């Protein structure tokens, strides 16, 4: 494991130097113009439309999007459970588009776990190695090592039905990790767990990924999960890949309104761009560079600051919602739109509903969205 981890680290630095071209050997999985259409004629449904993506070796990559966006279909195409209607899937530079799932060095953690109910935890974990024809000694050693990795050694002889949901989840992980796949696919594996357990498993998954150095492709509709765990995120909607980037890039520089809306909370402000900036209300101009003509601005609530009356833009507090650590204020800008500001609860004076306040928006943080 240690050696493998070192390999991954050196590989990563290489990637940083060379940049990742599509055919580079440093890519674990490459999808080239992958399309998937179910049905024919009038009943045809496009689940994936021309997806191209390169996932680097050793990275934690998340496919993020609402249900029905095609993220699971893409995952199933990589696993081999679905055959793309068009395009190709490369694994470590090799075309595996037509290869059946049992011949792909890729393992999946299923949403429903899909543990074999008639086999013990140890037999479940050793299943992949047994099917590969490994010797009993090898299987036993690997099972022991992987069970230790997910901290389940005392449960080796139990049946899945005798375990809690969180433990079953870890067995599913161990079973997929045991054959040391090149890529581990995770299909919304945390969605059946309660919030506290989910948080703990997020940390656990990240730790496992770093310790094993295996490429993780994680599918989720939970933007927070994606932001906290991923090296890079691919945001999908309606069978299309909208943006690929680090959590920081996705959050700070969303490419369009869908991404900005899906990741975190965002104020959308319509305006008219000119040389001076963007006019969001008669006479109210934000010093932001636009392309000219009507544009949409995306502003995160934490970037809207409430000041003393007279400073910045003039506004009135319409609503104040106390959320524990934060308070959300809905502010009506004079002659213009409403924006939401998020303010840390104990940070200074707390304006009340009806108060006149000043509002400043950091022009640096404003995103001008293409639509």
């Amino acid at each position, binding site marked *: 494991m240690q050696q493998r981890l070192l390999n991954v680290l050196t590989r990563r630095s290489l990637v940083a130097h060379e940049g990742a071209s599509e055919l580079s050997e440093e890519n674990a999985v490459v999808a080239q113009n992958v399309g998937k259409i179910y049905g024919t004629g009038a009943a045809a449904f496009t689940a994936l439309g021309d997806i191209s993506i390169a996932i680097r070796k050793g990275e934690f990559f998340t496919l993020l999007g609402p249900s029905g966006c095609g993220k699971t279909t893409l995952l199933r195409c990589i696993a081999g*459970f679905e055959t793309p209607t068009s395009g190709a899937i490369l694994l470590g530079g090799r075309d595996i588009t037509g290869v059946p*799932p*049992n*011949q792909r060095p890729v393992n999946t953690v*299923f949403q429903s776990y899909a543990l074999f109910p008639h086999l013990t935890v140890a037999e479940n974990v050793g*299943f*992949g190695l047994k099917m590969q024809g490994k010797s009993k000694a090898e299987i036993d050693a690997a099972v022991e090592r992987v069970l230790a990795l997910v901290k389940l050694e005392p449960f080796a002889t139990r049946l899945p039905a005798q375990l809690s949901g969180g433990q079953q989840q870890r067995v599913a992980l161990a079973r*997929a990790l045991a*054959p040391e796949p090149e890529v581990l696919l995770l299909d919304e594996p945390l969605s059946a767990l309660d919030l506290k357990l989910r948080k703990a498993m997020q940390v656990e998954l990240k730790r496992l990924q770093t310790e094993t150095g295996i490429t993780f492709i994680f599918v989720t509709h939970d933007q927070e999960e994606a932001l906290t765990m991923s090296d890079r995120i691919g945001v999908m909607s309606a069978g299309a890949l909208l943006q690929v980037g680090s959590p920081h890039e996705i959050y700070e520089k969303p490419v369009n309104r869908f991404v900005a809306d899906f990741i975190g909370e965002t104020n959308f402000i319509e305006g008219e761009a000119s040389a001076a900036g963007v006019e969001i209300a008669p006479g109210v101009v934000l010093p932001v560079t636009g392309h000219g003509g009507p544009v949409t601005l995306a502003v995160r609530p934490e970037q809207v600051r409430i000041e003393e009356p007279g400073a910045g833009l003039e506004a009135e507090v319409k609503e104040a919602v106390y959320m524990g650590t934060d308070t959300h204020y809905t502010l009506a800008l004079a002659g213009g739109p409403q924006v939401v500001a998020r303010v840390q609860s104990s940070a200074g004076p707390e304006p009340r509903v009806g108060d006149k306040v000043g509002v400043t928006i950091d022009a640096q943080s404003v995103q001008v969205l293409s639509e």
Partner: protein
Amino acid sequence: MRKAFDVTTLPGFTFIAITAFVLLYAPIVTLVIYSFNGGNSVNLWGGFSLKWYAEAAGNEAVQGAAIRSFIIAISASGIATTVATMAALGTTRRGKFKGQTAIYIMINQPLMVPEIVTAVALLIFFSSIKIATGYSGLGYLIIAHAAFCVPFAYLPIRARLEGMDLTMETAAADLYATPWKTFRYVTLPILMPGVIAGAMLAFVISLDDVIITEFVKSAGQDTLPTYMLGQLRRALTPEVNAISTALLALTVVILTAFFLITRKRD
């Protein structure tokens, strides 16, 4: 507050329930008691004795019929269970397809068509084969029994498969199992309680069949039920009770074994 509907509060509930149980079990209890009769009558008590069991066990005709019954029941339930398992896999381990309902009806045909019709049809069909080939062994009875046992084996197997998550097979394929190994190590073991239930049902149904056996059998191919039917035409002795009681005991043992096996597995 109004009480929810409860069937036990209906007038006559207890009376009807007791009557039904008495009608179901009193004749069987009588039959078992008279199998231990020391006398020669099936309804006049002549003291306790095991003589009719000894008589039945020593009767060569009973021995022959018993051996034949078991050969037929074991072979027929084996064939029927295999066929039913394949049919159940074919009808559940894939998406909906055209003609699915028609196939269900065709598989379950023996449950709906009057047995006498099947019996006559098989008689005519087999007699022409007998003339053509000259073969007149137990094969006809085995095939006939296998045919009407299929739906009895099919129903519990299909029920088990329908409750089984399709991702099991997907997961096995993901973990490097070939389609055959997936079946061998995942599908079949999970399916096993259903298969055992199906096999046992088929076995009991075959063991107990009279109508089709009576029509299809050649001379000297009596099974236990047809032998007992034949005895009715002569003097009826408690030997018939003894054989029936033995069959009853066997059924109880099989069902208990099945119950214990399936409970352990789940």
